[in-house]
């Protein structure tokens, strides 16, 4: 009896947790063209991964605004312009794989990243959360 109550409570917690905090994890191409990507609400949080395009990075040291584009590693012509307000992570650099979490504004074609995770290649290395 008691066990059932706990199981039900946990199931509810997990269900609520996923429905309120779960977010799609998409590639740049999926975000731009797929049904799921196009169906996203205006303020819906989504995660998207890709490689930083060389020559697109600007960083305002005083205001702490980082702007860059990422592209889909599998479909390089799919590019996403992103803006992140916060300090540039140590490992951030052109060509590196990043994971963005935030909202996509389809009208201005701009991805507003609330979180930026940098994936370090090759070694037992760390991403950094910012």
């Amino acid at each position, binding site marked *: 009896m*008691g*066990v059932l109550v*706990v*199981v039900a409570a*946990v199931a509810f*917690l*997990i269900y*609520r*947790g*996923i429905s*309120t*905090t*779960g*977010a*799609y*994890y*998409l590639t740049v191409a999926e975000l731009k063209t797929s049904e*799921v990507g196009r169906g996203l609400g205006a303020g819906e949080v989504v*995660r998207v*991964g890709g490689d930083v395009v060389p020559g697109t990075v600007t960083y305002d*040291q*005083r*205001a*702490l605004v980082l702007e860059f584009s990422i592209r889909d590693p599998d479909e390089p012509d799919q590019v996403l312009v992103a803006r992140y307000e*916060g*300090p*540039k992570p*140590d*490992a*951030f*650099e052109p060509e590196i794989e990043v*994971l963005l*979490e935030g909202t996509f504004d389809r009208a201005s074609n701009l991805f507003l990243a609330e979180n930026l*995770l940098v*994936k*370090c*290649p*090759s*070694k*037992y*290395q*760390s*991403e*950094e*959360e*910012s």
Partner: protein
Amino acid sequence: MVTLGTLSQGAALVFTLASMVLLLVGLMRNDLRWIRAGKRGLVAVAAFATLASIALAWLFLSDSFQVEYVASYSDRALPVFYKLTAFWAGQKGSLLFWAWVLAGFSALVVYNNRREPDSKVTAYVYLVLAGTLAFFLFLLTVVTNPFEVLGFTPPDGQGLNPMLQNPGMVFHPPTLFLGYIGFTVPFAYAVAAMVTGTTDAAWIRKTRAWNVLSWIFLTVGIILGGQWAYVELGWGGYWAWDPVENASFIPWLTSTAFIHTAIIQERRGIMRVWNMVLILLTFVLCIFGTYLVRSGVLQSVHDFGATGLGGYFLVFLGITLLGGLYLIAESYDEFRTPGTLESYLSRESTFLFNNVILLALAFATLFGTVFPLISEAVVGNKVTVGQPFFNQVNTPLFLVLLGITGVCPLIGWRKASPANLRKNFLRPAVGALVVGAVLVAAGIRQPYAWLAFTLAAFVAGTIVQEFVVAVAARSRLTGEASWNAALRLLWRLRRRYGGHLVHLGLVLIVVGIAGSSAYKLETQATLSRGESVEIGRYRLEYENFRIYDKFNRTVYAATLGVFAGDDRLGALDAERRYYINAKNPTTEVALRTTLREDLYVTMPGLARNGDITVKVAVNPLLVWIWIGGGLMVVGGVLAVIPARRKGRAS
């Protein structure tokens, strides 16, 4: 050295396989001579694995960059200390470390059983240990050899990731590994018990001891990992619910569950099947964690990248899980005991409840961790959950667990009487309510934080009350001074009070987590020299800037004076370090820790004109997480020191 390493590693595999064959033959023929030979084989494996490890350490110390692994993780400028720790910085070396420790533990099991006659039970224990060893040694010799040489000798190595050049990173991986690996031993004992159909007092004692020992290592590993993240990564937190963090936390939960129900089995002889399930789960989850790290299936900070080892671990995982489940089903009739819970108000039932909550936490964490894989398989889209999910789901469960922690150790066995309840819980409950009221008056309104502090007061109250009463009683009886009586009591009943210390540690950790997550202050600012930034009761003034070389790095350091009102409390150096051999600078955290709060400063930005950009945070009560963690470990150690027994090591 390369030859010595390769040969020793190969010899270890050969001896492990030989040992398995000897043990199997001995078991089939029921001949103890074969079993004894197999046992000695295991000790030889430990010797060879040690030789191989020495060889690899030597190659690192002697800058032997013709070895691919050494060239990848070390360079000439690396301080000697970190050259040694580069041993386990990568995939290959950490596997060798794993095999070495498991071989050492196996030899230790042999040593522990030296006074006991060999039997079928011990033979199965050795067989499982040898089987697991064989898996790791197979990976090392055949799939991913740390002694592999390049066709040439590079002039210098590629160096160690600067983030790993930190004392926390030195001890975090090995202790975590020691925990993971240690759980192989309870698993081996469980398999032996299920195959032979025997569990006795000695069995539960040994299984419990190895489980607690591994639990201690796992706890240390997890806490050090959190601390490393806090002081090194510079994002201000200590736990991110990253898949690999979760992978270490989940077996921690299941082994904690076992530590509790093992007591019931010891006392009442019940819950034997359940305990087997918990041991199996813990071991399987450890292997699963290793699989997650080394397969690259999930996005993680700890990723080794796609190493090509995932498949092997998956196979090993499958065999272990299916074999274990089969054995549990087979031995179910033998081990099951009729349900004998007399009352809901008893220690047994609170232990059960504690188990349910611990497993619920484990399940929720596991579910969230693998949810991207599930959702991709089921609906075709990867849906991920992040920190908010885990915080939302696990926080209420954790608070329930904390509440039970207060009740559990003091409620009577079998059926608690009203008198027992009144005696043990009235004062702590009243005390906690008073604390709760004071907290509200002091402005603590965040519901979870309030509940956490109030429950913490309750649990601490029960523990302190019980101890004070016991010390007073002893002091009356023996005439000892109270401090003396307290120490003697602590030592004589170390299992009991070790457990209580662990609980007290948990209380402090909860206080630290609640304080630092609910009342964290954060700000960032760009400063020219002489300018200040204010946060909470502090003002930080940018006073000075220096550039200097140290060991293998160039350091850019900004000195910030810390003021509270007009008092200058001291100075903090926020640094950016440019390591030789590293492409990017690393941010070094400047930290001012007091029991009340941490002042946490990083310098993510640095302009040519000397302006700096700083991130400043105040993390209230955070240091209590580390203090509580330390107390947990001390309590665990106290609880695992064996009671004196003639000629017995447990």
